[in-house]
């Protein structure tokens, strides 16, 4: 976990206010330390959005840390059914019920005595039970018994005043439908709205932090998952690192690919802590170039992480072995290179970033090399495509701060004469761009490589031909072949015959020609 979540009931160092740590993954990160003790919060959401799970998860976590919780329902589902649904969750612990976590129905008091009767019952029970967390589930029903909005607000104010003296944090759960007005939102100290909606065929759960009084917080929309662990929140990556450190490591070194001519062009390699985009159409060799980078790092003793979406680890190792990178498996087995394969499921973009950053933090090593194979994996997990630029900028910056030297592979269209990155602003947040492309000429496909951008370092901007051989990626010694390919014919110098363009590097035709050339040179000598 990247966020610094504190223990239960810890005091906020800045404000001196005591906090109730919810223990819900990353909710305490959003609230910058937990709910305020004695404060009240509204949890809104349509049926099925996870209000009950969230409130129970907070309650079980709270009692585990020594608190006492009271869960009062008002004509919601029966306690037996609620507990049966919760039983599968990992936070559930039957042994704390009813002594530490008490479930009550407040409906009969409400029906007999109205809001006053309910308030009296809550006060009495909470004081006797020494409650430190009160959950009132079904605020819509309580509202039905209010004579007016004003009397409902009065009920809330009385409840809050009492809970405040008791030091009891209150959660008010209320169903919510679009456009609905909730008078409790003005009275409470914080409002969290859970939502459930469809983005294409995909169900998206979100938590919107709308209000949080008394402390700084990460307001806004954050994606939510409900699993056997209960609710897990994934804060937006760009707000998690909205105040990033300005500087990374100063003793930066060049990180080579282990491909002689490419490393020469890069003046020894890309700078450590930088981000490099490998831009190219499918099949141009981006994955192999990235694997070269990890492998060269491992040979130099630098750890590496492959974070990819499309190739399973065995398939990836097989592919690498087929082009002369047999020792990749050796370094993977040793643990120096780690393959983090993300199975083809419906991912959450921020959850992917968390997984990656947490893993790097766990490894806690210097000079780590990272290859993210397929930015499109992140893109397809995005519910809000307009976030992509800010997301990658924040992720790249955070990786830089972790001293990771990152390569992203990014696909350009397969059949396009121009170079179009799917994410136009990408050029701004990466330091280096290496372009791999196909050029079709006289029924032959040639591969060309060029360095489009390299910040803070000199580089050769010339275009070179390259090939994928049994010994890995080979880059042409000179720019000549690339020039021949791009112009479509050899440059005619005075007194020389026009030359035909050679077959692509690494192909049988090119090998034969290279052999003939060698014989000729030997005869001349």
């Amino acid at each position: 976990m990247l966020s610094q979540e504190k223990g239960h009931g810890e005091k906020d160092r800045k404000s001196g206010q005591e906090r109730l740590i919810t223990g819900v993954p990353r909710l305490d990160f959003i609230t910058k330390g937990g709910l305020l003790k004695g404060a009240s919060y509204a949890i809104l959401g349509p049926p099925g959005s996870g209000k009950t799970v969230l409130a129970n998860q907070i309650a079980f976590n709270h009692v585990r840390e020594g608190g006492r919780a009271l869960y009062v329902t008002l004509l919601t589902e029966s306690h037996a059914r609620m507990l049966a649904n919760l039983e599968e969750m990992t936070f559930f612990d039957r042994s704390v019920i009813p002594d530490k976590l008490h479930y009550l129905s407040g409906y009969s008091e409400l029906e007999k005595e109205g809001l006053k009767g309910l308030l009296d019952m809550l006060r009495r029970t909470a004081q006797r039970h020494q409650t430190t967390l009160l959950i009132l589930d079904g605020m819509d029903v309580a509202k039905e018994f209010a004579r007016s909005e004003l009397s409902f607000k009065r009920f809330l104010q009385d409840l809050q005043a009492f809970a405040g003296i008791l030091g009891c944090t209150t959660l008010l759960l209320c169903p919510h439908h679009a456009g609905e007005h909730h008078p409790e939102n003005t009275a409470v100290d914080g409002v969290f709205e859970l939502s459930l909606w469809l983005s294409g065929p995909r169900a998206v759960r979100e938590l919107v932090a709308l209000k949080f009084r008394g402390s700084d917080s990460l307001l806004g929309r954050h994606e939510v998952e409900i699993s056997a662990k209960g609710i897990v929140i994934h804060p937006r990556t760009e707000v998690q690192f909205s105040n990033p450190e300005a500087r990374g490591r100063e003793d930066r070194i060049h990180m080579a690919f282990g491909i002689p001519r490419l490393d020469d062009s890069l003046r020894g390699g890309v700078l450590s802590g930088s981000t490099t985009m490998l831009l190219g159409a499918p099949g141009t060799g981006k994955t192999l170039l990235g694997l070269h980078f990890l492998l060269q790092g491992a040979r130099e003793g630098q750890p590496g992480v492959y974070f990819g979406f499309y190739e399973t680890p065995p398939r990836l190792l097989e592919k690498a072995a087929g082009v002369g990178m047999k020792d990749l498996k050796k370094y993977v087995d040793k643990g120096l290179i780690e393959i983090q394969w993300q199975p083809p499921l419906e991912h959450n973009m921020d959850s992917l970033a968390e997984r990656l950053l947490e893993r790097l933090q766990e490894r806690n090593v210097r000079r780590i090399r990272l290859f993210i194979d397929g930015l499109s994996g992140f893109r397809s997990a995005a519910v809000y495509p307009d976030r992509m630029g800010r997301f990658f900028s924040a992720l790249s910056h955070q990786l830089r701060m972790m001293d990771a030297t990152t390569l992203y592979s990014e696909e350009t269209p397969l059949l396009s004469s121009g170079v179009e990155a799917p994410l136009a602003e990408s050029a701004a947040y990466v330091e280096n761009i290496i372009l791999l492309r196909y050029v079709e000429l006289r029924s032959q496909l040639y591969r060309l490589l060029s360095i489009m951008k390299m910040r803070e370092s000199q580089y050769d901007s010339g275009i070179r031909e390259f090939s994928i051989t049994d010994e890995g990626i080979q880059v042409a010694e000179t720019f000549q072949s690339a020039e021949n390919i791009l112009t479509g014919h050899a440059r005619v110098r005075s007194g020389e015959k026009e030359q035909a363009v050679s077959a692509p590097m690494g192909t049988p035709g090119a090998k034969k020609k290279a052999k003939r050339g060698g014989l000729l040179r030997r005869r001349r000598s």
Partner: protein
Amino acid sequence: MKTVLIVDDELDIVEAVKAILEEERYKVVTCANGREALQCLEDSKPDLAILDIMMPVMNGYETLKAIRQRPAFEKLPILIMSAITPTVKAKDYASAGFLKKPFSLRQLLEQVHTLAPQDPDPQEPR
């Protein structure tokens, strides 16, 4: 059963403190300002008065002074309860204690139990 008079214009606080003290077996009488408090003093004969400072009609200092001028209530324990720390004037009028808002249940009960200790409950086993 001991009687506590609560004088405060903030009704939610009055109601909350009343509920808590009733649960602790105190009889509670409530008033929204000093003038009301002086009127009900003779009838309720409290064992303890909990007095807010900032109130309409008659503020806490004026109320305290007026209570002390009545011989029957010269020694009545008075607990000042306010969001502001009382000035030296409150001490001059011999208040028995001070409870700064917001206060906790423990702080409230400690003061109340000290200033108006309950007689032992005859029904409670010894």
